[in-house]
């Protein structure tokens, strides 16, 4: 176990994390706008054997399968379409990364993945109702919003235990305690990681400001506020929420400015829950396909 160190060291340490979702920004770019270059998409998917296997398995699943089996990635792309394919890729890549056991936040194996998936689904649902962002963009932003916490836990700091002790004792928020104990916030780690991996600046803003959307650049604020709302609704649902989950405060100003209303968010929950339960079993098992 290591003691607290600086932000740059954390980012350096996470370079060795297996299966970092580095091809995701490229896939997102290809899937955007509905005119994807299928050949390039096939090439990218084939770079990752596990992803290629998942795509083929999904294309041949009962839900998508016709009489003919898909034998190649190009067949699978044609059958699934670029949007569905992107969704599978995003879920598979980040899910694989987020499934490791993580201490410090009290997460069981898979908890961060379950929670991130719920945030993604909430974000996608709200994006359709609120028209603050494209649904695929919102979904991806939900998946990757909290990668900095995984990186901190992966770096295995004993300091995380100090944070979880300090927060209830001092009635502080989690981010206030991070700042005191670590000297930086997990959102700064997320920002650095997403920049290193070449994610578009909008996603970097989400990672950096999702806890305080009022501070986000104006151009990115609608999406950042959407993820802020999605994050807290997903937290209330409980899936994969660790010891840190409820120690946050809503940014009321940003939520009101974006047009969110408490009752309307509550009313969306039955639909959100139905979608989540397609992907997460009652026992908590995740099935992306």
């Amino acid at each position, binding site marked *: 176990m290591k003691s607290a160190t600086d932000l740059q060291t954390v980012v350096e340490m996470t370079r060795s994390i297996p299966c970092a979702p580095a091809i995701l920004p490229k896939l997102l770019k290809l899937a955007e706008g509905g005119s994807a270059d299928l050949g390039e998409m096939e090439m990218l998917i084939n770079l990752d054997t596990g992803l290629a296997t998942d795509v083929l398995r999904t294309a041949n699943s009962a839900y998508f399968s016709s009489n003919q089996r898909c034998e190649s990635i190009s067949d699978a792309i044609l059958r699934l379409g670029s949007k569905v394919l992107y969704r599978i890729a995003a879920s598979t890549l980040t899910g694989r990364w987020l499934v490791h056991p993580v201490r410090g936040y009290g997460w069981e194996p898979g908890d961060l993945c379950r929670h991130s998936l719920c945030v993604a689904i909430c974000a996608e649902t709200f994006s359709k109702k609120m028209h603050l962002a494209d649904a695929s963009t919102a979904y991806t932003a939900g998946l990757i919003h909290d990668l900095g916490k995984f990186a901190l836990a992966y770096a295995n700091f004993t300091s995380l235990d100090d944070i979880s002790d300090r927060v*209830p004792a001092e009635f502080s928020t989690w981010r206030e305690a991070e700042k005191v104990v670590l000297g930086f916030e997990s959102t700064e780690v997320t920002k650095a990681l997403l920049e290193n991996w070449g994610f578009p600046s909008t996603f970097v803003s989400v990672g950096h400001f999702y806890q305080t959307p009022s501070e986000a650049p104006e151009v990115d604020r609608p999406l950042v506020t959407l993820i802020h709302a999605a994050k*807290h609704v997903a937290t209330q*649902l*409980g899936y994969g929420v660790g010891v840190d989950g*409820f120690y946050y*405060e809503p940014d009321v100003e940003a939520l009101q400015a974006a047009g969110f209303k408490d009752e309307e968010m509550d009313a969306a929950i*039955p639909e959100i829950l139905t979608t*989540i339960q397609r992907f997460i079993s009652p026992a908590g098992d995740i099935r992306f396909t």
Partner: protein
Amino acid sequence: MVPSYNPATAQMPTIIVGVADLKISTEPATYIATHALGSCLGITFHDAKRRIGGMLHAMLPTSKITQGEKIREAMFLDTGIPKLLTVLIRAGAKKADIRCKVFGGAQLMATDNFFRIGSKNIDMFYRLSQEMDLEVVSWEVSGRVNRTIRLNNLTGDVIVKIPSKPEFIR
């Protein structure tokens, strides 16, 4: 010689209750469990005389929010609690012998305007428990913790797990 039953060592099967779901058991040597309540409420009913137990994992206080859509009764407290009680009584439990325990309802900090499901659920449960004359013997609600609960249908004990803490019994 027939081996005596030892609940401390037996591997009792566990029935899992999902979100917006309810389950009962008439088999004493059974656990009924639900994961990660968050702001939802997990409500256990147990008839100790007949060893019949049930659990509801409700997400929202009132079904009125759905405005005429087809509802899942177990998603809401106002429909889920009467449903659980009805099912238990049909299975042989007696209302006078049923003890109720309630868990969950976690809340974010400073939530006067947004994300108040936890407090709304607790308020609604309190109201319903009065109206339905439920004997509530344990309240483990509110706070900033995500609770996982497991009802031992043999004893009526509920084992509570929260992240980074040891289990305890209510």
